């Protein structure tokens, strides 16, 4: 096969560009390093263990979704994608020790599309918190938590 090297280079560049476009932008939560993520099953174990420090669990998503079902003991702050939500988050943790074990979660949309967890995580990193984990919810809170029979509370 006789291929034009310039054409090949163009095709290759175009594919790399398309690939780059496909993998960035929408996937902001993907920028949260693995080391700061916690899986649902890991959090369930922590919730079931009476010993050790109780984490402060903060919901940074939609209130309508939180009212239907949330992690027992978690506190609703507001969507961290909004200025108000971020302010509420900063206010809630301002007096907490910087080593406090904090778990952030949302579950409104698939992980790659969640607009809330990354701004919340960034805000806590900026404030100097050193023990923050973000609950990795692959699809949504319904399928990755409630449908698995993990503990749930309702209401405000």
């Amino acid at each position, binding site marked *: 096969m006789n*291929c034009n090297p310039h054409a*090949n280079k163009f*095709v*290759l560049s175009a*594919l*790399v560009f*398309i*690939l780059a476009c*496909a*993998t960035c932008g*929408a996937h902001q939560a993907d920028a949260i390093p693995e080391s700061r993520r916690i899986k649902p099953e890991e959090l369930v174990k922590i919730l079931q263990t009476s010993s050790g420090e109780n984490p402060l669990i903060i919901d940074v998503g*939609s*209130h*309508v*979704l939180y*009212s*239907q*079902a949330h992690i027992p003991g978690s506190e609703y702050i507001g*969507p961290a*994608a909004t200025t108000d939500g971020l302010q509420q988050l900063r206010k809630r943790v301002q007096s907490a020790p910087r080593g406090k074990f904090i778990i952030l979660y949302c*579950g*409104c*949309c*698939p992980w790659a*599309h969640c*607009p*809330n967890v990354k701004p919340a995580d960034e805000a806590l990193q900026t404030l100097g918190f050193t023990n923050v984990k973000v609950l990795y919810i692959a*699809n*949504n*809170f*319904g*399928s990755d*938590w*409630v449908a698995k029979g993990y503990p749930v509370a309702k209401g405000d």
Partner: protein
Amino acid sequence: MMSKKLVIGFAAVIIVFLFMLAHSRFRERHPPGSHRSLAPDFVLPDINGGNLQLSDFRGKVVLLDFWATWCEPCREETPHFVELQDRYRDQGLQIIGVSMDDDDTPVRQFYKQFKVNYPVAMGNAKIGELYGGILGLPIAFLIAPDGSIHARHDGAVNIDIIEAEINELFASIPREKRPSPSAESNH
């Protein structure tokens, strides 16, 4: 030359994989005629100051879409829904949006910005529970003219699949009950 071909092939495979991943969704479907549950009726405030009652649309094929302005996959599928509503309005398709936003201000802005041509109501936790828990967005229900739930789609909608389902429901309507071409909904 060979290595370039391999790179191109590899990149193509990754792109196809990412595309499939982005459009993957959970779909629960009930074929026409099988046992289906009735879509729970509700009355919700619409964003134009009125009330929206689901049972008012009995006789139409209804696509009930739970969404929110902050949900990126929801935003992406809205233009497709606007197009579907235009294309199938005369045949009896009625799309209904139920926003799960906490506040209606961004919903009104979104409605204008995207020139939404179907009614949008403000949802709440109660309707979420009524529909088995709307604990992630988007979630869409396709409702048959008799009011039964034909399919539930969790995640971003594959428009081709949902369009095929809509046509399947149209085909299941007896000819004498199909709307005449001049009959249009003003919603």
